[in-house]
């Protein structure tokens, strides 16, 4: 395997993405979780750049790293957050072990499949996947799912409001 700048960058970025995800799970404070999540998402934006998907990378930084993380931080600031992280004193001690076993098995299967399958080594031309092509795909061929997604977002918003709203009469 030839070590190029690209492969080094890929390794660093993917380690950062995975590390951010792991930190997010193991962190106990909400603010730390949000920061590690933002870190992870930012690294994914870097991977997009490596894949010549610049537009996607910019959008990733704008929306995920920027907007969503900031929104979460605002949410934390504006709500009560007595994060009383009670220690998991669950009586079932074998739970972590079983989950580890399950996740390990899934990982082994997926890695096994990936390594056993031959992959054609030819380079793909990424120039044709331009912003224009993306726009055409989203607003022409996939206009129906696109519109449905807007209803989906509306529903999620309504749901968040009615589940979080405090009634006037309480």
């Amino acid at each position, binding site marked *: 395997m030839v070590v190029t700048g690209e492969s080094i960058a890929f390794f660093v970025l993917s380690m950062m993405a995975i590390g951010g995800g792991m930190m997010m799970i193991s962190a106990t404070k909400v603010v730390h979780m949000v920061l590690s999540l933002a870190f992870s998402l930012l690294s994914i934006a870097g991977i997009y750049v490596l894949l010549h998907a610049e537009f996607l990378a910019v959008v990733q930084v704008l929306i995920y790293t920027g907007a969503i993380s900031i929104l979460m931080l605002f949410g934390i600031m504006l709500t009560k957050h007595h994060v009383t992280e009670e220690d998991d004193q669950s009586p079932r001690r074998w739970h972590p072990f079983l989950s580890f076993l399950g996740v390990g098995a899934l990982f082994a299967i997926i890695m096994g499949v990936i390594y056993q399958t031959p992959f054609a080594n030819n380079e793909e031309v990424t120039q044709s996947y331009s912003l224009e092509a993306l726009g055409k795909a989203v607003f022409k*061929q996939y*206009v*129906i*799912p696109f519109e449905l997604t807007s209803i989906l977002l*509306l529903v999620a918003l309504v*749901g968040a409001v*009615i*589940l979080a709203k405090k009634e*006037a009469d309480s």
Partner: protein
Amino acid sequence: MKTLIDFDWTVMAPELTIAGMAALLSVIDLFLHPNKDRRFFMWPTLIAIGTAIGFVATQWGKPAYQILADTYRVDDFAFVFKMILLIGTALVAVISYGAFRREKGFAEGEYYYLLLVALLGGMVMTSSGDLITLFVGLELLSIATYILVGMRKRAITSNEAAWKNVVLGGVASAFILYGMSFLYGLTGSTNLFTMKERLGEALTSGYDLYAWLALFLIVFGFGFKVAVAPFHMWVPDVYQGAPTPITAFLAVISKTAAFALMLRVFLTGFLPLFQGGGGTLVDEETGGRLLLTMAGLSMILGTVIALRQQDAKRLLAYSSIAQAGVILVPMATWGPFLFPSTVYYLVGYLFTTLGAFTVLMLIEGDAGDSKLSSFAGLSRRAPLTAGAMALFLLSLAGIPVTVGFFGKFYILMNAIVTGSPEHWAMYLIAGIMLMTTVASYFYYFGIIRMMYFRPPQRREGLRVPVGAMMVIGIAFIATLGLGLMPQWILGILGNLDWGAALSPVK
């Protein structure tokens, strides 16, 4: 290439009606006084569903049609499933009328338009040939139901149910998406028909492991969505905690839509993985093995655990797992009556389950809990309701002259026809089905025994609202009528062009 204007968009009228009414209701909700009773939202909801049923009915007998590379398509398969979903949601809306009066701070306006949006998601899931649209439809249905389940904010069980539903449903969606991404990477297309062709090539050129991995991940996710064992753990808690009309919605509409999605994805996109060596012959050595295992496991687990339940809602939840196993049997065994037997069973399941949950809702409102003992002496307090409930339970158990009996019989015949000494698994699944059916008599008759042979805890009669009475009546007539005259609906189902769903529009 055709432009957007060239397509005949009128075929989308049912979906547009539902979406339009949901939007309209959300605006009306905004302008109404906060303290105003929003029960009357049921009427516009019913009108929208009725109009949509009318629009769907106009597609009867018309050839299949697709818009924008199969991202939306209408065919007879979509026609039938949309009818089931629409009728089911209409009945759920009727029993919801006034069901939440005692619930403080219940967002009743939102309830109705979320119900419509969930229905819209289900309808989209039945009529598309593109993975992206199908997945968006699935999420629309799932997210709307996550909210509906958690709407009784003050009930701790409802909160727990919503939480479990969101987390496990989210995991299931992630697995489906992961599987789909492998599939897309392998075939380079999200169109199910293109996928079928390219998957066939991939299988013979050394990429078969990838295809199996994709199928495995997708089966995992679909298993959660249709609630079959071993992916059933969330079902009892969610069914118990959700408001009862929503439990009925989950048990009937969500399940039917998920089955429609499963049928379409497996029988078109994944077809090469289900076909045996002989070309068209389908055997259990391939993808069918996964489905057979799931069907058998859910029938056994659902029945065995239901035997020990003391709570009627949990009992019906486990029974719905067993029923999902039965519905999976035709898909796992294929055979000549795959579509008609599945759809016939689903139609019967729709009416009997909705009827049973309606009675359960009345009992719950009366006694304050859904324990089996709350059914005691129902025959003396409300003889008609008790009689209807007994019929629904007999139908769920599969006793003759009900729709459930004929549905099971049809599925059983279909399984046996496909069996042969080489395909002994088909006989095995038929045997499991028979045995679990017999075992299920025990718990269904447990409720009937309670209703007829135990003294009532209270003297006064059971209050039955008009809406619930109508739903029970409709369900009663359908359960008995379709059981006595199955040929009426089977004639319709037999004449439909099921093949249109499996091939591209010419």
